[in-house]
C-alpha cells in the first residue's frame, strides 16, 4: 500500500487513506479526481473538478529510504532554462 500525494494548481497534500502501489496510472488519475472532489486532501477541495483534470499529469512511484511507498501525482515539468 502507498501514500498518494497530489499537487494541483500549486497546492500539494497527502491523501489519508493508502492505495495500491501497483494501481495503474489511469486508476491513480481517476481516484485522484474523486479524492479532490470529496475534499479528501486538506486545502485541496474542488467539488466541480473536471474528469480530465489530471489527464496530462505524471505519476511518480517512489520508495523512501525508510521503505515507505509513495505515489506522486504532479504536473509535468518540462521547463528550466
Amino acid at each position, binding site marked *: 500500500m502507498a501514500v498518494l500525494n497530489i*499537487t494541483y*494548481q*500549486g*497546492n*500539494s*497534500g497527502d491523501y489519508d487513506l493508502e492505495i495500491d502501489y501497483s494501481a495503474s496510472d489511469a486508476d491513480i488519475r481517476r481516484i485522484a479526481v474523486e479524492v479532490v472532489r470529496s475534499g479528501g486532501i486538506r*486545502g485541496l477541495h474542488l467539488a466541480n473538478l473536471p474528469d480530465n483534470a489530471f489527464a*496530462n499529469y*505524471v505519476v511518480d512511484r*517512489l520508495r*523512501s*529510504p525508510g521503505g515507505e511507498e*509513495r505515489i*506522486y501525482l*504532479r*504536473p*509535468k*515539468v*518540462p*521547463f*528550466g*532554462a
Partner: protein
Amino acid sequence: MTRIAFCGVGALGSNAVLYCRELGAELRLIDFDRVESKNLAAQWFVKQSVGKNKAEAVRLQLANFYGVKAEAMGVRLAAHNATQLLDGCDLAVDCFDNHDSRMLLSEAARARGLPLVHAALAGDGTFGLVRWDERFAPDREDAEGQATCEGGEHLPVIGLVAATLARAIQDFLKSGARADSMVSLSGVVRTHI
C-alpha cells in the same frame, strides 16, 4: 577544488548559479543562447547583458558584482562535445528547458559516472522539482511551443526552485547527500533524503 557544470543558465540556471556563488566550487556555465530583453523578467540578467551569450553574461555578472570567477562555454551541449564540456567536472546540474537536452545530458553523465541533479518547472509556474538523476525522467511539453513561465509573475517560484536546487548542491558537496525536493505554492517538501 570541486568543479560544477551548470547546463543551461536561463531562468533556473542563472538564479541557481547566483545562489551557488559562495560554495567554494569552480563554476562552469554552459549555454548557447543569447540574452533577450524579455529574459530580464525571470532570469538573473541585467540590461547590460542583453545581446550577450547567456553563459558569458552570467560569468561577467559574477565577476563584476561579486568578484567570483567562473568559466563560460557559449555552446550547445551535444553528443559530439559532451565529453569536452563535462571534462574535469565533479557534478553536473541540469537546468535545460527541453526533453532532448535533458536526455542527452543524462546519458553523458551516466556514461562517465558523473553525479547529476536536475531542476525543472511546470509551465504555469506553480510547481517545480529538484531530483537526482537516478530518480529522474524528463517530461515533454504537452504541446510544442507551450507557454513557459518566462514572465516575471513566476519569479518567486523560480527563485524558490533555484534556491532549493542550490541547497541540494550544497548538501551534496558537504556530505554527498542526494536529496530530492518538490516545490509547490504550499512549500518545499523533501521527497528523498
